[in-house]
């Protein structure tokens, strides 16, 4: 038997580190379906979940994988799946069900170059808007963007904690390079890892209302079989969980599931700043592009260009206020991402025309080199 937390220094790929993060976070169910470049997460979970008393099921497709994750979480187990492009598209209906029925779980998308089958073995960050709007209807999401195997480990734990705290499926939007890159990963002692678990109901079981929120707008969650009467539906529902077919009930419920994220965004959003204090040009980036950007900032500084970096660790909810305040201070904002402008449009929106906004991006298939970012910084600087 292996320990639940693999404390120590390891040389792991991002995908492997993600699996270790999940095990350390207490994940006990993995609903799998093979897809490049996320398969290695499933393979490691298949190997180790049984050793910690968990269950791994390779399902018949991604629709089933995501549905099983919702099922396992409803039964009380911390649950997750991992996929990429086409699988992410197939999971979107059940993802939306999870959002609306407030089922905590984690879904990892190791992004490859799309659209469609695209370049299965090569990186991209082209699913960022799909992460935000991929399922139908109005809702809010939480999406994290790790940039190293070490972050794959920690952000998987963070994703589980956020999902349990706010009762929703949380996305980890990784990329092929971060997933397949091997680096040192330091795993702390088990008791140094802070874990959150879903708020449990208290009080009389016969008076329990499964969707009656607390002051934080999050309802406590009873697991099936604990004796609480629960009714879960993807139809618009009231506090009892019963369908409530009216525009008023719809407004009330959607406002709450949106509000519980928007109103708590300051607890959720994490970013990392680098040399921003005296900067005139700020790069906004995330994931593997954040690493290229880091190198570009140092090279730009050597050339006398006052560049800095805001790396988004949380991409959704979007740090709107932070971008707006940067826009007031900077001459230009430069978004670096492996797509043709997704987060770039958000940056532009939030900068409200207060400074120039540029994109350094391409359609996918390889990382963005620091040289390419530097060229853009030089052109903007002139």
């Amino acid at each position: 038997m292996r320990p639940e937390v693999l404390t120590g220094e390891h040389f792991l790929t991002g995908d492997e580190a993600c699996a270790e993060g999940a095990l350390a976070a207490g994940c006990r169910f993995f609903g799998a379906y093979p897809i490049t470049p996320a398969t290695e997460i499933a393979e490691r979970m298949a190997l180790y979940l049984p050793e910690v008393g968990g269950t791994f099921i390779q399902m018949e497709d991604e629709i089933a994988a995501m549905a099983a994750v919702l099922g396992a979480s409803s039964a009380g187990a911390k649950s997750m799946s991992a996929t990429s492009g086409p699988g992410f598209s197939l999971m979107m209906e059940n993802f939306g069900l999870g959002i609306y029925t407030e089922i905590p779980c984690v879904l990892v998308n190791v992004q490859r170059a799309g659209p469609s089958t695209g370049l299965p073995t090569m990186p991209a960050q082209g699913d960022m808007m799909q992460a935000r709007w991929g399922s139908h209807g109005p809702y809010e999401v939480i999406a994290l963007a790790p940039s190293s195997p070490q972050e794959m480990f920690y952000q998987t734990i963070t994703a589980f904690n956020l999902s349990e705290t706010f009762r929703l499926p949380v996305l980890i939007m990784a990329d092929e390079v971060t997933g397949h890159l091997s680096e040192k990963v330091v795993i702390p002692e088990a008791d140094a890892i802070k874990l959150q678990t879903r708020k449990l109901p208290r009080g009389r079981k016969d008076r329990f209302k499964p969707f009656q929120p607390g002051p934080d707008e999050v309802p406590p969650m009873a697991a099936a079989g604990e004796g609480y009467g629960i009714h879960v539906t993807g139809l618009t529902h009231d506090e009892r969980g019963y369908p409530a077919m009216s525009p008023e009930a719809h407004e009330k419920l959607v406002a709450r599931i949106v509000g519980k994220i928007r109103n708590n965004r300051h607890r959720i959003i994490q970013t990392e700043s680098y040399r921003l204090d005296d900067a005139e040009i700020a790069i906004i980036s995330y994931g593997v592009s954040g690493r290229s950007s880091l190198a570009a900032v140092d090279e730009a500084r050597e050339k006398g260009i006052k560049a800095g970096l805001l790396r988004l660790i949380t991409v959704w909810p979007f740090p709107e206020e932070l971008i707006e305040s940067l826009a007031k201070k900077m001459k230009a904002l430069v978004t670096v991402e492996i797509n043709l402008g997704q987060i770039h449009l958000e940056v532009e929106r939030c900068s409200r025309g207060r400074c120039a906004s540029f994109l350094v991006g391409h359609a996918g298939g390889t990382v963005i080199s620091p040289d390419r970012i530097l060229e853009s910084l030089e052109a903007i600087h002139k």
Partner: protein
Amino acid sequence: MSTAILDLPEKEYIMPGTRTCAGCGLPIAYRFMLKALGPNTIMTHPACCLTILHGMYPKTPVGINAVNNTFASTAASAAGLAAGFKATGQDFTVLAMAGDGGTFDMGIQALSGAAERETDFIYVCYDNEAYMNTGVQRSSATPAGAMTTTTSVVPKEQSKKDFIQIMEAHHPAYLATTCSSYPGDVYNKFAKARNIKGTRFIHLAIPCPTGWGFHTRDTVKIGRLAVESAIIVLYEVEKGEVRLTGKSLSMAKSGRRKPVDEYLNMQGRFRKMTSAQVEEFQKQTDKHWEELLRRAGF
């Protein structure tokens, strides 16, 4: 109808060279399938090992038109192609081809729908008994006792899904099984299927050295062993009548059949099988063979 190897059409539809793994059985079968179907064929396939083979110019030029569909949709894509050709008055053979993952697991809904609607197409499931394109994960076609990367500690405990029976329950116009180690059998069945209207389902067994753990020189040998041990049985079904073909027919006549041991022992994926599991594998093989013998009138 049967064609001797020497009488096969000389025209090639897949050119020399391939991107598949060394020793892959798929190009062998595909070459003879296309000889039987001819140039008036449109093929649709999902992301699978066939995508590795298909049309990666100039590594494997393929001489027929092809459409790459989404993973769950091969038969639905074919249904659209067949309807489109009908609407535009064109006469093509619509060939849908997916692996065991894209058929037994993910593609079953689309295939069941197309077969129930009696869609006029040929559906081929090439079965290499796991998700080989993503690196050997189990599928519902993986036999009990086999190791894959998602059944690596405890080999798969469940038996292979009897998908051929599921397809037979749809009463297709033509149903056949074949194996890449018998190109003549492959050719004959596709040549026959081509001239039948309605849904035609062909199960094509493909040995996979990468996923099964055998030497690349043994691909043909492993497929033959599978047939000689009756793990794979070559037959066809029309209007509920079972007819054994090729090697399986001669085995039925001679009564000679190899035990499963040699087949299992040649493959790394079965190295954790217990003797009880081998015994069970033999028992299931016997039962399947005897049932087919009975249905074929032996």
